[in-house]
């Protein structure tokens, strides 16, 4: 099943569950890095709002190159903390930028924003701000 925003197909993300803090704990346990989890969350929460703001500005400016760069920059951090849905949406946004499709990027932006807000909110609930 695919999502559409207006008449634009932005792909499916129904098979990827929204972020849970347990995902982060699993990723850190797999990496044997449980002892730096607080530092990692702090680093993520420091960077994520700026990353999201850059994405919003690049979409607003309809600059496909900047969309690609901004989405790519945030994707790495999202994947690193186990936020798979956010990382997948950022990958699609990056592809839209790479293909010069600013309309699809604009359609993806609200989905990216919701996934971003969810991740940030869950991390703040669990670890404080």
């Amino acid at each position, binding site marked *: 099943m695919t999502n559409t925003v207006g008449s634009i197909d932005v792909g499916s993300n129904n098979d990827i569950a929204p972020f849970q803090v347990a995902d982060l704990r699993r990723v850190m346990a797999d990496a*044997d*890095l449980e002892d*730096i989890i607080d530092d990692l969350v702090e680093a*993520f929460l420091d960077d994520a709002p700026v990353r999201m703001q850059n994405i919003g500005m690049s979409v607003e400016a309809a600059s496909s190159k900047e969309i690609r760069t901004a989405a790519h920059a945030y994707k*790495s951090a999202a994947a690193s903390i186990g936020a798979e849905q956010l990382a997948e949406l950022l990958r699609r946004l990056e592809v839209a930028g790479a293909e010069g499709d600013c309309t699809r990027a604009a359609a993806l932006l609200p989905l990216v924003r919701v996934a971003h807000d969810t991740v940030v909110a869950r991390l703040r609930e669990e670890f404080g701000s």
Partner: protein
Amino acid sequence: MKILIAEDDKVARLMLKSTLESFGHEVVETDNGVTAWEQYSQEHYRLMIVDWMMPQLDGLELCRAVRAEQRPVYTYIIMLTVLGGKGCYLRAMDAGADDFIRKPLDRDELAARVRVAERILGLYSEVTQLESLLPICSYCRKIRDPNDRWHDIEVYISNRTESSFTHGICPDCYQSRIEPQIRQVDRVES
């Protein structure tokens, strides 16, 4: 080993640094290609792990700059990226990278890649040593390896090169060692 890392993403950098430190390595971290280059210019690093996409100076440009220096001691470079595919792999290799790791980082994969880097750098050191100065004991003629172990010269060279030894006697040794023995045998027989 002292490792220089260049990664602009704070989260990825922290994970990379912590993981490498947990393997027992000393890590010098930089958050962009320019700072990494400045650090490399001040000190030699045998292993660098660099992100592909960084502002100002990206991983490919950093690789090219390191290779253009042509320092006598080799620097092994691992490129770190979320990009994939044969095209990206080939571009990284063309720029001078030795290996490639996909993000997000996998601890076991990183450990394996770093072990390979250490192995290759070790072999490189041995080859360089064979091509240059071999520390040799003045008395027993044993040779010291890079790990401070002493080896018989024949064993050392045979184990590290394609060479093997055939045994003969040089004119000086023939004169000083063999001829006296022959003369002694002749005397006994007469």
